[in-house]
């Protein structure tokens, strides 16, 4: 395929993916916005007013970046895992497999779909957060780069889950038993400096901690961790997961008999 043909093919997958989640916006966009709004009301307003400051900021201001990031992570992941597994389960992955689409375009197309949903939900949640606090931007570049890289990483993770999944149960196990606990323990609601040293070190193994902290740094200018290290970890994970996804598609794992 020529470069232009590849661009058209990539655009086709992206449009298809965006239309897919847009058509069912009541299931894909609205629920996370409502859930996160409840977090704002309960944790930010009601409980947060009793907690006081965190790292020198109002508790609401402190948790807003983490909650936005939580919505981005779960929706980027959920979009790709459900879309890819559904495509596989109903056999319309064959529409792509019989075409000259190279594997990397399939991967990039699904990632772009996941990123699009993650960002859509992220923007909607950010909009809602403005009802509860005046968001400041310390570094717009850090905010944008972190949110794009993180949604890319979790879209890739969702794709891998979709490739390995053999039943609908398999696509809910990882989000329930891995993603949600890691997100809650990833410093969304607290600073790891509050933890004993042992648990601080344990927390540092959790990659989500780095994403939440970097994203919060973009808003507040404070972070528990090195920003450079965070970028290195996120990019490192992206490269590793992307390579693995390409390898799996190359050998036809889960998609070709």
């Amino acid at each position, binding site marked *: *395929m*020529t470069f*232009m*043909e*590849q661009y*058209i*093919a990539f*655009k*086709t*997958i992206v*449009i*298809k993916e965006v239309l897919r989640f847009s*058509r069912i916006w009541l299931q894909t966009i609205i629920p996370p916005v409502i859930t996160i709004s409840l977090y704002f009301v309960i944790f930010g307003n009601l409980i947060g007013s009793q907690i006081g400051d965190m790292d020198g900021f109002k508790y609401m201001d402190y948790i807003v970046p983490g909650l936005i990031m939580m919505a981005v992570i779960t929706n980027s992941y959920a979009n790709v895992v459900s879309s890819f597994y559904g*495509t596989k389960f*109903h*056999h*319309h992955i*064959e*529409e*792509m*497999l*019989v*075409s*000259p*689409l*190279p594997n990397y375009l399939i991967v990039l197309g699904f990632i772009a779909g996941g990123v699009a949903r993650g960002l859509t939900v992220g923007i909607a949640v950010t909009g809602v957060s403005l009802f509860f606090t005046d968001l400041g931007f310390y570094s717009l570049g850090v905010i944008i780069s972190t949110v794009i890289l993180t949604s890319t990483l979790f879209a890739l993770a969702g794709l891998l889950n979709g490739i390995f999944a053999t039943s609908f149960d398999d696509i809910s196990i990882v989000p329930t038993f891995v993603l949600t606990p890691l997100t809650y323990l990833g410093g969304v609601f607290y600073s790891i400096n509050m933890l004993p040293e042992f648990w601080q070190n344990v927390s540092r193994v959790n990659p989500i901690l780095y994403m939440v902290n970097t994203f919060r740094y973009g808003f507040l200018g404070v972070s528990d961790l090195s920003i450079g290290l965070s970028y290195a970890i996120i990019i490192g994970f992206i490269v590793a997961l992307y390579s693995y996804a390409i390898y799996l598609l190359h050998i*036809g794992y889960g998609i*070709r*008999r």
Partner: protein
Amino acid sequence: MAIALSIQNLTKTYANGFQALKGISLEVEEGEFYALLGPNGAGKSTIIGIICSLITKSSGKVHIFGKDVDRDFSGAKQLIGLVPQEFNFNVFEPVEEILVNQAGYFGIDRHTAFKRAEQYLRQLGLWEKRREQARDLSGGMKRRLMIARALVHRPRLLILDEPTAGVDIEVRRSMWQFLRELNQSGTTIILTTHYLEEAENLCRTIGIIDEGELVANTSMKQLLSELHTETFVLDVKTPLSEIPRLRQDCLRLVDETTLEADISRDCSINSLFTELSSHGIEVLSMRNKTNRLEQLFVRIVEANNKTGNAQ
């Protein structure tokens, strides 16, 4: 004449050890209408799956118009269109969008894709349904949608895996006409079907696969010439109590107004009618007992099974 499809020593052994293909080699010339027949589980869909990259082969080579599907993946894929056995489109997508997306995967811009979608949807009688979700189409319409989708990138080789399964006779005949015209316009077609009448009507060349092996590969005319005897069913006007004694001792009485006659290829049907007339038997109608290709197909597959059992 170019070779549209060349398969050499193709084997496939599944993870459970089942050997679906045992070294099949065959060639299909450009412009052919080729029937690939075989009983259920013979390996037809496995061959098609390998040609279209839905199944990974164990060994062997596949070339499409001289392009190796392993080495020139993209070039080979541009030349093939597949109509699979099972519905494999997103049933929640509108009909037109399914075609436009498929064209997009082949690198065709949306403007051209919409024009081609209109062309094929009109030709296949689906234009009025273009805005409807695919799940709202009837079974026959879904089959036609898959044909339109397979054509949207204008392949030179179209592979149809049981395209008329479960389709009523009227729709089936209109699909035959469409496929005939497509073939006449230069598209090479490979068809698998369980309707042997369909294969006999449409195809000029035939390959029969059984238990992963190619047991026949020849022209339809040549194959049918191997049929030495045909059985006809004759409906007679006056009820008969016994089989008339004729020079050609080839008749069976099915019921009092129905006779079956085995006619050798070198015998004239006229002589049978003459003899029946001389016995005062008036024939009202005559038809083949079974499709000629069906008789041959059953014979070849049975012979292959006997050979296999003997070994």
